[in-house]
C-alpha cells in the first residue's frame, strides 16, 4: 500500500496505524529470512507507537503527513534505544542514547520506524555484500544484489515490507540500489537534510534521503526530513522546500542536457533507457540537448581518495574504549588494534588504509590534496553546464543488478558501479534516480536527473514526468 494512501486513511480514521504496522511486520516476517533485509525489527516499539497514533487520531488530532506509515531505517541512522550496527561487528549491540534529526522528524510526522535495514559495512560498498550480517538479496531477483550501500532499505521497499525507507548516499548509495530495485531514490542537496545522528562515512559527501516506489512518496518523505537543523553546522539555513506542490509542474520549456559521460561504458540497454527517458522529457515539452562534461571522468578517482580519507578519521573512534566491541589485550594500544582488527571487515580496512595513506605525510599533496582540486574542477564544470541547461540526465548505474558475489573479489570493479552517481556527491548537488526501462534480463533500470544545489523542486517534477512516461517507454 502506498504511503500517501496509508497516511490519508489513518488521518481520516479509516485505517488503524496498528493495522498498517502489522501488515508491514507480516510482510517482513514472510520474506526477511530469504532476503536478509532487516537486521533488527522493532516489533514492540513500532506497535506501541502505532497505538499512540491511533489514540491521537481518536482524540481528533492530526499526527502528520506520514501518519501511521511504516518506514525502514538504514542501520546507520540512530534511534534512541534501537540497535545501530552500520552493518559492522564493531558496533554489535550498540544502542544509541539519542535519535538522528531525520528520525525525529519522521516520528514527528507520524511515521513509524519498524526496524533497521541491512547495509554495506559503514556504507562502504555497492552491493550490500560487505555487511557483517550477510548479504541482502534483491527482491526482484533473489540471486542478484540489491545494490548498495542502502541495499536493505531498497529491498525493504521493493519487497513491499514498507512503503518508504531512509538511506544514505555518499557516492550513490541511495540512487544505485533504487535503480537496481526499480525504485525512486533521492540524493538531496548537501545540507538539505541534517546529518545529525547519521553515523558518518565521509562527512563532506554523506546525505540522508528517501527510497520509495513513487516520486510523490519519496518527495513527501524528503519534505518531512529536510530543513535547517542547528545541531548540524553544515545544514542549509532554510526550511524544507515545498516538493509536493511542484510534482505536477511538468518540464515544458525546460532545458535538459543528456550527459555523454553519464552513459558511456554502460550496458546497451542502459544507454537505450537513458535515451528513451530523454525522448519522454522531449515529448513533455523539454528541450533536450546532448552535452559532454569530460571532467566528470575524474570523479571516481577523486572520490576514492576523498571518501576513504574522511572515513579513516571518522572510523578512528571505534577503538574499544567507549562502546561497541572490545577485544581485550594487555595494554590499550594492543586492545585498540585487536578490537579494530576483529571488528572491521576487509572492505572497511581497505578504505581506512587507503584514506590513511592518502592523508599521510609525503602523500597528502599528491593524493588527497590533488583530489580536492579535482573537486573544484568538477564543480566548475557542472556550473558551466548549468549555464546551458537546468537539468542533467544520465544513467544511474552502468548495469542492471548483478549476481551476488560477482564483484566481491575485485574492489575496482565494484567501485566502478558508482561511476555515474559519484560526481553529484563531490559537488554537493541534488539528484534523483527514477525507474526507467529494463535490462538485458528484464531487471529494472534507473535513470538519473541531476540539478544544482537546491534544485529538488525541479528534479521531482521532471522525475514525475518520467514516472508517467515510463509505461510508454
Amino acid at each position: 500500500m502506498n504511503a500517501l494512501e496509508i497516511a490519508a486513511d489513518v488521518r481520516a480514521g479509516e485505517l488503524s496505524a496498528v493495522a498498517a504496522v502489522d501488515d508491514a511486520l507480516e510482510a517482513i516476517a514472510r520474506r526477511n529470512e530469504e532476503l536478509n533485509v532487516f537486521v533488527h525489527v522493532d516489533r514492540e516499539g513500532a506497535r506501541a507507537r502505532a497505538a499512540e497514533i491511533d489514540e491521537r487520531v481518536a482524540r481528533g488530532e492530526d499526527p502528520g503527513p506520514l501518519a501511521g506509515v511504516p518506514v525502514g531505517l538504514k542501520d546507520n541512522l540512530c534511534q534512541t534505544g534501537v540497535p545501530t550496527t552500520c552493518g559492522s561487528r564493531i558496533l554489535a549491540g550498540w544502542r544509541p542514547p539519542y535519535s538522528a534529526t531525520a528520525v525525529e522528524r519522521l516520528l514527528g510526522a507520524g511515521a513509524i520506524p519498524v526496524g533497521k535495514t541491512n547495509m554495506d559495512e559503514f556504507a562502504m560498498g555497492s552491493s550490500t555484500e560487505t555487511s557483517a550480517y550477510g548479504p541482502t538479496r534483491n527482491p526482484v531477483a533473489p540471486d542478484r544484489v540489491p545494490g548498495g550501500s542502502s541495499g536493505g532499505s531498497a529491498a525493504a521497499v521493493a519487497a513491499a515490507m514498507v512503503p518508504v525507507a531512509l538511506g544514505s548516499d555518499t557516492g550513490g548509495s541511495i540512487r544505485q540500489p533504487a535503480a537496481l530495485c526499480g525504485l525512486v531514490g533521492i540524493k538531496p542537496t548537501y545540507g538539505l537534510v541534517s546529518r545529525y545522528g547519521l553515523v558518518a562515512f565521509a562527512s563532506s559527501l554523506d546525505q540522508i534521503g528517501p527510497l520509495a516506489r513513487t516520486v510523490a512518496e519519496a518527495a513527501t518523505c524528503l519534505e518531512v526530513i529536510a530543513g535547517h537543523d542547528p545541531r548540524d553546522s553544515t545544514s542549509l539555513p532554510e526550511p524544507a522546500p515545498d516538493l509536493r506542490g511542484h510534482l505536477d509542474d511538468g518540464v515544458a520549456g525546460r532545458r535538459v542536457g543528456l550527459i555523454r559521460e553519464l552513459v558511456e561504458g554502460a550496458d546497451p540497454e542502459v544507454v537505450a533507457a537513458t535515451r528513451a527517458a530523454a525522448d519522454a522529457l522531449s515529448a513533455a515539452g523539454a528541450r533536450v540537448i546532448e552535452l559532454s562534461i569530460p571532467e566528470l571522468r575524474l570523479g571516481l578517482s577523486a572520490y576514492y581518495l576523498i571518501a576513504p580519507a574522511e572515513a579513516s578519521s571518522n572510523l578512528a573512534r571505534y577503538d574499544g574504549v567507549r562502546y561497541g566491541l572490545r577485544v581485550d589485550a594487555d595494554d590499550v594500544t594492543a586492545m585498540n588494534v585487536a578490537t579494530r582488527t576483529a571488528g572491521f571487515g576487509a572492505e572497511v580496512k581497505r578504505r581506512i588504509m587507503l584514506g590513511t595513506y592518502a592523508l599521510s605525510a609525503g602523500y597528502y599533496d599528491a593524493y588527497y590534496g590533488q583530489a580536492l582540486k579535482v573537486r573544484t574542477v568538477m564543480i566548475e564544470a557542472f556550473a558551466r553546464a548549468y549555464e546551458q541547461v537546468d537539468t542533467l540526465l544520465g544513467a544511474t548505474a552502468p548495469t542492471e543488478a548483478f549476481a551476488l558475489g560477482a564483484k566481491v573479489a575485485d574492489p575496482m570493479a565494484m567501485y566502478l558501479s558508482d561511476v555515474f552517481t559519484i560526481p553529484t556527491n563531490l559537488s554537493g548537488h541534488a539528484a534523483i534516480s527514477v525507474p526507467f526501462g529494463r535490462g538485458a534480463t528484464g531487471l529494472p533500470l534507473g535513470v538519473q536527473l541531476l540539478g544544482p544545489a537546491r534544485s529538488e523542486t525541479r528534479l521531482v517534477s521532471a522525475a514525475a514526468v518520467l514516472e508517467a512516461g515510463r509505461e510508454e517507454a
Partner: protein
Amino acid sequence: MSDLTRDEVAHVAHLARLRLSDEELDRFTGQLAQVLDHANDLRALDLSNVAPTAHPVDLGTVLRRDEVSAGLGRDAVLASAPAAEDGRFAVPRVLGDEP
C-alpha cells in the same frame, strides 16, 4: 603501476591501528595499488592554479550561543561501555603518553 610497497601498507596499518596477516598484507598492497593506479589520472593533471574544495557548501561562519544544555545521564553514558569502574571508562594500561 603504483610504487606502493608492502612496507608502506604495513606502516599505514600501524597508523590505523589494524593488524594484517602476511597474506592480507600482500592482498591489500595489490588492491590499494590498483586504486592508486586509477588515481594516476589525477596526479598527472597540472592543477597548481586550482584552489582545493574541502567542502561542497559555503555557509560562512556558523555559531551557537554559549548555553548549557542537559547532557546524557551517567548511567546512559556507561551503559554501552565495554568496561567501567567507579563512574569511569576502564581501559588496559596506557603505555605511551599523549603526544
